[in-house]
């Protein structure tokens, strides 16, 4: 079975929510839709207090090349356009809407039937994907239309649809592949058409046999789409790791996947592309897993963007007394939630509750030079060295020489360290500094 070559770890996958079918979450009374749901420049709000909006109406316009549209996920009245704290407490402009009924924009096709006939031209598809505000839904939230427009001198040989879902606990993509396999297949065909009809692979890890079966059945009528079964290993869902696993091509240090002739998109992104192009439905909701050993009922919800996390927890009947830590995203790369009143975004794939025992930190020991972190690093870096250089302070040249900017922040080094050294925490801070230095140098 195929997998990537360098490093990787095998955490327990804990996919305890995998048998919970996707269900729509009841609408909250109020939503706060963030204008910074994508990587790059935040969108500019185009509604003001008192405006009434319907589902699917544009409320934020892109403010740069790498930016995106934001649509209203509910119908009702705008009560405020103000800065609010996001999950980590940083202030971001939000559009706050009082929910009144559920009135959808008339141009959106809400019928259930599958529409597999792709009539739109390449340019029309790209324009639709852009105007629907679609971003990479694996977590990085990079605007999809930018990724689908490779530079003129580069050609994409492969389109990889990322259904690896290597993060423990998260089952959102698994459920989506099981329940919407036909739509994902069409979405894949749509994106392949934009890239000039290249070969597409749908990559799924072995721990999701039902998803593999469903996708194989759905893709059987497409010649150019193949479903691949991957060995279970973290971080297989990383862009560069997936390319290595499937094509055996290596993405050069500091370069983009297109250098290896690949474009990687998440399955949820493929589904969103299907809905946008075939059903004219902008990106307003996504599947989100609500899980954890201390949660009574595991859930996979279809949530509208802007739903407060506190409302989701309340509705799903989570007992917050048992939860010591709430994580937005998976346990490896997700962020700890500092503000429970924050709202869901395009990249929120999971809400994970961990108990005190699960999150307990062990006392930090000394580095014993065992080299486990170097073995585990999927980018072939030496985390212990980066850690030592970072700790000494101001050794940015040495850090750059040791390719700190190639770190994908997957957390394998911290996971594997027998001395419980928080390697990634320190590397991340210095990576930001080094990136700043490199950017300033490029400006000169």
């Amino acid at each position: 079975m195929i997998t990537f070559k360098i490093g990787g770890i095998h955490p327990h996958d804990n996919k305890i929510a995998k048998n919970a079918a996707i269900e729509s979450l009841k609408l909250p009374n109020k939503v706060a839709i963030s204008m910074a749901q994508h990587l790059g420049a935040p969108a500019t709000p185009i509604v003001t207090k008192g405006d009434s909006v319907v589902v699917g109406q544009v409320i934020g316009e892109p403010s740069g090349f790498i930016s995106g549209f934001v649509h209203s996920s509910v119908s009702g009245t705008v009560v405020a356009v103000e800065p609010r704290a996001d999950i980590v407490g940083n202030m971001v402009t939000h559009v706050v809407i009082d929910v009144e009924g559920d009135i959808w924009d008339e141009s959106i096709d809400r019928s259930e039937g599958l529409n597999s006939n792709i009539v739109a031209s390449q340019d029309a598809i790209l324009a639709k994907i852009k105007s629907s505000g679609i971003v990479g839904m694996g977590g990085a939230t990079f605007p999809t239309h930018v990724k689908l427009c490779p530079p003129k001198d580069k050609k994409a040989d492969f389109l990889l649809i990322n259904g690896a879902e290597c993060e423990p606990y998260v089952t959102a993509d698994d459920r989506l592949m099981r329940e919407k396999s036909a739509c994902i297949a069409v979405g894949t065909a749509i994106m392949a058409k934009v890239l000039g009809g290249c070969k597409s692979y749908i990559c799924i890890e072995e721990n999701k046999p039902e998803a593999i079966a469903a996708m194989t059945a759905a893709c059987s009528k497409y010649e150019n789409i193949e479903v691949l079964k991957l060995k279970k290993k973290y971080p297989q869902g990383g862009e560069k790791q997936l390319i290595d696993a499937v094509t055996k091509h290596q993405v050069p240090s500091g370069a983009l996947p297109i250098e290896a002739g690949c474009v990687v998109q998440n399955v949820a992104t493929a589904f969103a592309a299907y809905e946008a192009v075939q059903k004219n439905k902008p990106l307003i909701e996504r599947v989100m897993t609500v899980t954890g050993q201390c949660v009574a009922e595991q859930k996979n919800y279809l949530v509208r963007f802007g739903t407060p996390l506190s409302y989701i927890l309340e509705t799903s009947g989570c007992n917050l007394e048992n939860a010591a830590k709430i994580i937005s995203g998976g346990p490896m790369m997700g962020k700890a939630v500092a503000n429970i009143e924050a709202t869901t975004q395009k990249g929120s794939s999971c809400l994970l509750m961990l108990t005190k025992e699960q999150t307990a930190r062990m006392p930090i020991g000394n580095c014993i030079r065992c080299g486990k972190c170097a073995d585990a690093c999927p980018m072939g870096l030496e985390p212990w060295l980066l850690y030592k250089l970072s700790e000494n302070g101001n050794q940015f040249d040495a850090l750059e020489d040791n390719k700190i900017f190639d770190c994908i922040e997957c957390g394998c080094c911290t996971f594997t360290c027998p001395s419980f050294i928080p390697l990634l925490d320190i590397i991340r801070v210095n990576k930001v500094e080094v990136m700043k230095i490199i950017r300033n140098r490029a400006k000169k």
Partner: protein
Amino acid sequence: MDSTLLITVVLITVVGVVLAIVLYFVAQKFKVVEDERIDIVEACLPGANCGGCGSAGCHDFAQRLVAAPQIGSLFCPVGGNEVMNKVANVLGQEAVEQAKMVAVLKCNGSCFNRPKTNTYEGLSSCRVKAALYSGDTACRYGCLGCGDCVSACKFGALSMDVSTGLPVVDESKCTACGACVAACPKTIIELRPVGLKNCRVVVICSSKDKGAVARKACSAACIGCGKCQKICPFGAITIENNLAYIDPSLCKLCTKCVSECPTGAIHKFNFPKKPKEDIA
């Protein structure tokens, strides 16, 4: 005398003389001319190599001083005016007097004033903590309390107060080198002039949130109400982004603002106690 001995002595002498001549010309050719004043100036400097002047160390600073046509804005904060006068004497220039500065922490978000909204269990470093989230309280601007400034201080002038969770500046040891200012990811430490007779009036808050938000997060926050600005007879107080700032060059230490502030965000430092207060 044995001829072998004679030959040896003569040969060694000749070789020595020839090599000495070669060495002399090589030394002339590759001579590094360094202004001897650099060493003299360096001897005047404190030798702490703290980087407070903006140079890599004291030797680097001495080179810059000697090379500069006017000392002007070059200033050693650790040595102060005394050292700069000495340096000016060596260089035959006039030193520019600069007010002595001291580091001031602009946050009073102690455990009592600022309730915690969540707990941080990660690495005890402000930089790491700031990269992860905005802090364990509802205030995004305040002190994170992990003591990066304390470890940055080379003079032992900063220490953590365990009861409040905030760093404390020992004014007698602070040299105003600015290492703590650079180390703080929230930039809440400011270098201010020590003031007349060591007395200062400072707004001890950095929150730029609106009044209600700031007050909810911390009971000692500046809410930007503008009362201090109105009462100040010297126009020393400006309010920007919901935060008052007292310009030390205009403040005449009348302390009217201190009693006017509704949240007690304005503090006075080192004022002599009134006799009444002693009795109370």
